[in-house]
């Protein structure tokens, strides 16, 4: 139940965050380079929004992958191992992603 709730609530959060992300970052389409996105990414509020976005998108991706795998009867017995692996990937990817978001500092 908890995994289902995580997936569903992160889905609802993503409806908000992904809409913001798509509109702000990708529309209208333009050539992306560092100087163009640092204007926005240099602001602490955008960093906070992107870290929250990262949190929910990883949660949704990993709970979704877990659900896909355990639908396979062969892997159903390995639920505990899969949850462990997902938690590990979540932590690693979150740290990496947060570090990436942090690295968008305006050139001194």
């Amino acid at each position, binding site marked *: 139940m908890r995994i289902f709730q995580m997936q*569903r609530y992160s*889905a*609802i959060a*993503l*409806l908000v965050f*992904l809409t913001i992300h*798509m509109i702000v970052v990708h*529309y*209208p*389409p*333009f*050539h*992306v*380079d*560092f*100087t163009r996105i*640092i204007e926005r990414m240099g602001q602490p509020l955008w960093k906070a929004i992107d870290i929250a976005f990262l949190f929910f*998108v*990883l949660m949704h*991706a990993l709970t*979704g*992958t877990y659900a*896909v795998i355990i639908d396979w009867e062969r892997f159903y017995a390995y639920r505990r191992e899969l949850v462990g692996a997902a938690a590990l990937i979540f932590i690693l*990817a979150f740290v*990496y*992603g947060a*570090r*990436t978001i942090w*690295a*968008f500092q305006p*050139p001194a």
Partner: protein
Amino acid sequence: MYKSTGFISFVLRRLTGVALVIYLFLHMWVIGSVNSGSEAFDARLALVQTPIFKLAEIALLAAVVYHAFDGIRLLIVHYVGVTEYRKSLFYAAFAVAALLTIAGGIPILLFAFQG
């Protein structure tokens, strides 16, 4: 396979979901290049901004909007309990996703071919 609109929606949800997970990690890898400085970032981003990648972005957009509207459809089924409209809801979600893909794809297409 027991074919139905529900089955089609399920297969599309699975395929777009798995594709988006793969894309998410690739996306993080590309953007992660900023850790090695803004020059590395610009260099790696230049790789994925060729017209072919721009076209692939339309497929990505289609996957995102379909997955999102399929999800909204399931939220409606859960919170409003309208299982009797299951077929109309599927067609509606699909149509909205298709329209948004076209509406969002045209700017990408224009951008890709203007170079």
